[in-house]
């Protein structure tokens, strides 16, 4: 189990490349947390894949509606919520 429960921007960028086939510079993620995944070219299926990869890697379960995950900031909020008390997979 990783020490932290929040993927770094670099890790997210890597996931988006391998899972969704979309190349995003981690620096770009850093600067623009409000940019939408749609604008980045990551569609809903790709995002589901990224969420699943995060779930597997961090041992958490994400229950949020994919429609509520439009931006990187949304994603990080969702992960934080899932990793919080009661969010860990039993």
């Amino acid at each position, binding site marked *: 189990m990783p020490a932290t429960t929040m993927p770094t921007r670099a890790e997210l960028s890597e996931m988006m490349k391998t899972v969704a086939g979309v190349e995003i510079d981690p620096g770009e993620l850093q600067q623009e947390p409000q940019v939408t995944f749609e604008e980045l070219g990551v569609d809903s299926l790709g995002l589901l894949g990224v969420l*699943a990869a995060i779930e597997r890697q961090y041992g958490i379960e994400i229950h949020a509606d994919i429609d509520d995950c439009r931006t990187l900031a949304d994603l990080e909020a969702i992960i934080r919520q899932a990793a919080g008390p009661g969010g860990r997979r039993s």
Partner: protein
Amino acid sequence: MSDDSQRALITGVAAVAPNGCDTNSYWAATLSGLSGLRPISRFESDGYPVRVAGLIDGLNPAELCGDRLAVQTDRWTQLALAAGERALADAELVPAELPPYDMAVVTASSSGGNEFGQLEIEALWSRGPRAVGPFQSIAWFYAATTGQLSIRNGMKGPCGVVVCEQAGGLDALGRARRALRRDASVVVTGGTEAPIGPYALTCQIASDRLSRTADPQRAYLPFDTDACGYVPGEGGAILIAERADSALARGVDQPYGEIAGYASSFDPRPGSGRPPTLRQAAEAALADARAAPHDVDVVFADGAGLPGPDAAEAAALAGLFGPFGVPVTVPKTLCGRLYAGGPPLDVVAALLAIRDGVIPPTYGIGELAPGCDIDLVREARTGRVQTALVLARGFDGFNAAVVLRAA
């Protein structure tokens, strides 16, 4: 039917074959005898009884369709996306310039996204259900290629997918022609196949129809006394079928040809005592084209590569055209049987034969099997080619025939 404006023309083609990754190289290879049959190198297949396949080397997924699509598609779809793009360019057709509802996509498939599926099913059984990714739901199923082509090109017309093993490759064209009469002015059609993954190959081996010969030059010999099975291959072709009035309006002055006739049939149950129906399908296609057997300049045969089916096809041809009554050719000896991709590739070859006035030869065949009374073309034959008949048969007894005519 038919005033000329309703004719179904082919205005663009793109081949992607083991012996040529694009149309020009495929045609050059077909005429010169360059083979794409090679020892299987995709995976460690030493223990497999099948040693040879028609392989397209040197095309990676990202090259074929870009990273974003590459992760969500099987190679089968990637080949079709790349060929689709080239076929549209060949037709000088920019989809964004036509009304979306006027354009459709109809492809054939036989084994779908089998390799993508094998990856995901392996993940499931070795790592658990949660290891299956989000794209399995859209990459393996037989409609994936049509769906992705439709999305990529903004085509909102009547899209379809037909599955009849190898015969489906011609059925797609038949359906495209039908769609042009009712609903659409342009149909992206044809098909591809990518059946050389381990599980797909294992499935094919079970059919007992694949050649087990290790020498690529001796492995697939349709109509030959040494016929010993066929070699499977990957690839196919995408064609742009277009209604004549639409082509005219766009200023297309040199269409490849016309889909003048199409028909299909199914063989009787084995053991019923009734004869196979390939000949009926061919006759019906000719009637549909208002053509007589003597109008046909060349037959692109199905070429099963097995003694029984070869004899049956030869008998059908002799019955329809008279013994040695029409030039017959099987250019697929250089690339293998490509299932849903095979007949569209044959159609491209037939259209280029019409365009260039040359019948491509059948390479590698020695002595014809007894009873195969066909005029098999052994060397490229120049001369006017006006009308070509293309035949395809699918496992279990599907038959399809298309008549192509110079436009």
